[in-house]
């Protein structure tokens, strides 16, 4: 750590206590977010100093003892209004332009390329398949190997979304008709929360995702698993899935989506941390989601299956929750 950043981090220590969080830009877990957090501290303290200076001058001007001679007005304007900002802003601009280029170019050597597609209101994540050109899909969870740059090609299936995982990097928009790129790199294994940052309608608030960084070995093992079709028991739930869910959802090896609506691939749904973006992934929540997701995430495109009898509901939820 260089000296200035050392001083900064000491000065920021009392503040930093309130900076932690799985979605905090001030609790960086990767090099890009760390560089930006540092810029935030530098500018934050600089801004506070300038504000204090300006207000001290203004209050002095109002309340100073009568009879004190005032400096020349032109001198005040030139020193405070021209010289100070020109010097400070020139330095800041040089710093900003350099940092921008650095962050944009990092990731030229990405180890892995993912596709992320924003949907109202979930994230489709596509990993490279076993064969070249093939991809396998997951939803609302992105796993990456820790310590390695992972490039994400971002697009949208409907309106504009914005991909934001604050503890790893800044945000970038997912725009229909365009593909944007961003590089994620987590320094250590861990879980980081992100969510859509561009207002996209009813459930913008619940368009969340989780990034999970693992050791490269664990990640490779996991990806192998993702590529495999579902290890599904031939339980009654499978039949129910084919009847009620396969209009839109896919479970590879069991049923291919009929493509009525774009919907998350459920092949390994039980291995994901959350359902519908924000619910903990438990069999109870799975059943609740199937039965009344319109109450849990109002406006959601999926129909609610209130007409399913309790036994079928339980069977379907149990089967889905078995899809590790």
């Amino acid at each position: 750590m260089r000296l200035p950043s050392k001083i900064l981090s000491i000065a920021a220590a009392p503040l930093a206590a309130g900076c932690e969080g799985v979605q905090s830009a001030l609790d960086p877990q990767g090099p890009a977010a760390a560089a930006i957090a540092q810029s935030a501290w530098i500018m934050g303290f600089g801004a506070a100093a300038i504000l204090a200076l300006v207000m001290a001058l203004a209050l002095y001007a109002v309340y100073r003892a009568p009879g004190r001679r005032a400096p020349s007005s032109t001198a005040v304007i030139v020193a405070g209004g021209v010289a100070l900002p020109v010097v400070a802003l020139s330095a800041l601009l040089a710093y900003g332009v350099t940092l921008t280029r650095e962050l944009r170019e990092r990731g030229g050597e990405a180890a892995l390329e993912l596709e992320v597609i924003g949907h109202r209101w979930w994230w489709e994540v596509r990993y490279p398949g076993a064969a070249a050109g093939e991809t396998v899909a997951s939803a609302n969870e992105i796993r990456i190997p820790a310590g390695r740059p992972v490039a994400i090609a971002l697009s949208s299936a409907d309106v504009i979304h914005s991909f934001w995982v604050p503890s790893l990097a800044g945000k970038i928009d997912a725009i229909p008709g365009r593909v944007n790129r961003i590089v994620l790199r987590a320094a250590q294994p861990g879980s980081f929360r992100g969510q859509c940052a561009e207002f996209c309608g009813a459930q913008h608030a619940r368009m969340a995702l989780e990034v999970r960084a693992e050791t490269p070995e664990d990640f490779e093992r996991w990806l192998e698993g993702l590529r495999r079709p579902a290890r599904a028991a031939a339980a009654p739930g499978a039949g129910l899935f084919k009847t009620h869910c396969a209009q839109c959802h896919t479970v590879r090896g069991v049923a291919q989506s009929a493509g009525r609506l774009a919907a998350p691939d459920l092949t390994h749904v039980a291995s994901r941390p959350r359902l519908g973006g924000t619910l903990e992934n438990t069999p109870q929540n799975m059943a609740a989601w199937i039965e009344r997701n319109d109450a849990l995430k109002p406006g959601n495109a999926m129909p609610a299956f209130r007409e399913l009898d309790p036994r079928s509901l339980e069977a379907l939820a149990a089967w889905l929750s078995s899809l590790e």
Partner: protein
Amino acid sequence: MSEALHRRLEEIWCTPKGLRALTGVNHTTVGLRFIVTGFVFFLVGGVLAMLIRSQLAFPGNDLLGHRAYNAAFTLHGTAMMFFFAVPIMEGFAVYLIPKLIGARDLVFPRLSAFGYWCYLFGGLLLFSSVLVGDPPDSGWFMYTPLSSKPWSPGLGSDFWLLGVTFAEISAVAAAIELTVSILKTRAPGMTLARMPLFAWYILVTSLLIVFGFPPLILASILLEVERAFGLPFFAPHAGGDPLLWQHLFWLFGHPEVYIIFLPAAGLVSTLLPAFAQRPIAGYAWVVLAVIATGFLSYALWVHHMFATGIPLLSLSFFSAASMAVAIPSGIQVFAWIATLWAGRPLMKVPLLFVLGFLFIFVLGGLTGVMVALVPFDWQAHDSHFVVAHLHYVLFGGMVFPLFAGLYYWMPLVTGRQPSETGGRVAFWLIFIGFNLTFLPMHWTGLLGMPRRVYTYPEGLGWELLNLVSTVGGFLTAAGVAAFLIDIALQRRYGPRSAGNAWNAGTLEWSMRSPVPSYNFASQPAVDDRDPLWREPELAAKAQAGAFYLGHPEPQRREMMVTSALHAEPQQVAILPGNTWTPLVAALLTGLFFLGFLVKAYWLAALGAALAVAALAAWAWQGSSRGGPLEIDAGLGARLPFHYATAAPPGYWGGLVTLIADATLYASLLFAYFFLWTVSPAWPPQGYRDAGLALPALGLAVLVASSVVVRLGRGSTPATLFAMALAAAFVALEGAALLPALEARSHAYDALVFSIWGYAVLHVAVAILMAGFVIARRRSGYHERVGEARVAELFWHYAVAAWAAGFLVVHVFPFLVPR
């Protein structure tokens, strides 16, 4: 003598009571209407803000559902930006500018009244969406495709697009009027360099509106046309691009920030000297800073789009410009400090609000520099950090000066002095409440909370910060309530104020108190920036009729017109009196918007036709035929009446209107070239070209019409011949182009169709205007040379617009590789 003159002038200039008050056109009346209506929308937006803060007080709160919340923040932003901040500042300008520059009224009084009605009706139209249960809910920025038909199938987006566009007529109208008033109706001797700073700020603001609003008006028209008729401009599957909306929106949206801030800063620069009891420090610095801000504000729009994936070079350019705009703001801040430093500041309520403004605005400016740093913006953008930043800039930059201004100028309106206690209570409640709301919000944003979320989970560290913000919000609301109570008390019980309540140096304090409807019994001659400090007896002399147009038996509304740079007396304008025309014209314009909203296009067409008829009647209205051509204006000046000159104020108004119109057209051409740069094929595959022969002939015929108009010198046969040529152009071009277009199939066709439509519409209006001039002449209005010049100017503009359109539509496709 002076009392009799006062009564006579009051009779001529006053706004009638009762129902006929609706006919009022006087700038004092219209300005106050803007301010009061704007404040009502401020309260509406404030209530919406309290709903938003209540919902966010706790994680997982279910006070508002997603629909109500999304509508609430959409309407909050829309109300505050379009129906409070811009109009109330216009109101200040409409009310103050004539008083500050020594004029009796604005130069186009009916236009200000018309603008007010458009603003009011536009607001009512927009907010009626709440009553029918279909309010807009895609955000005040209306990003496509979320606001487009597939994702917003209801009427919400239409309410927004039509209501806001209707209200924007008032902004453009006020901008035209204020520009011409400031340039042409300053008191004799008030050269540009002696102009009160507020007039400089408003001049620059008006020009920002003239160049800044047309892109949004165009974007709104395009989106409404896409929604209503299916012409694609923003839909990516048909050659459009959602980013086109963002470019057009922010081309307006960033100047908009300065359209709001500059008038407010102008209030500060104008009232601060009264508290320092010395002239502003660095007048020339401030003027240059204001002009520089105006220019720079057009180089900032992309900083709202740093996260859209634009190239590195653009990022750097817009980052630099966004930082550079801090310099002119810094100059103003230090000019204010230097003024206080050099003076003997009196700590009264308006100054207290100015100091509060200084703290909040400087902090907002500093966080603005932070988000100008691109990588930091990638984190802060669309998070609560930006919510905090923009409220610091807008609430600090605009609402605090607004309150300072309300307290400062209130004696003009009520004739009473504001109380110190009530004002201080309001100030501290608002100041503490505001900072409690928004200071923690910087933190909330950097802890990862995005904007526009109606709910958030526990455990992300946002709970306490949000609760504090909510408490602060309600404290701010209590402060606004305290202000309202204070004003009500002041109106009733405040001590009578002397004419010059603050011993200020500017002309508005030379009037009787409360101010009379005619402002100045005689229009003063001025030879200093602070005329009342230079010449303390000026007020008495002006009130006694000793200056210009002070004749003892005034008959009608007369006002001096002076030269733009040096304010030498040139003409005497006869201003129209109270009339129903503006209200009727606005109602008929409303019929057009209403027809569009309910998709009864026959009704819209009828409304448009009737509105045009009303505008023609408006133009016809006014002074009598064959009156005198000259008048003794006093102080030895014998001047022509405005209608008998070649460059009456109306001609200037026509010029400024054409600049706004040309900006709209340039925005349309920008849309064409922008989509060209992002499209794989331009024109798209399968487009059948119209060929060059017929269009070239059409253009030749149209240019010939311009030559005929020029050489015919307004003779009736020549004008009729030119009209025939123009009609022939419409037929020729239509025959060539329309069969080739499938406007619903691709953005290319849709844009070509729109460019053609723009030209045809302008040719039609040019024909109508030429017809109007013929009719006027046949009715005996021979002396009105200025009118004929406006019509001719418009004719040449319409022809030039199509010449450019021809190059784009018919020549450009040959130049680009297919």
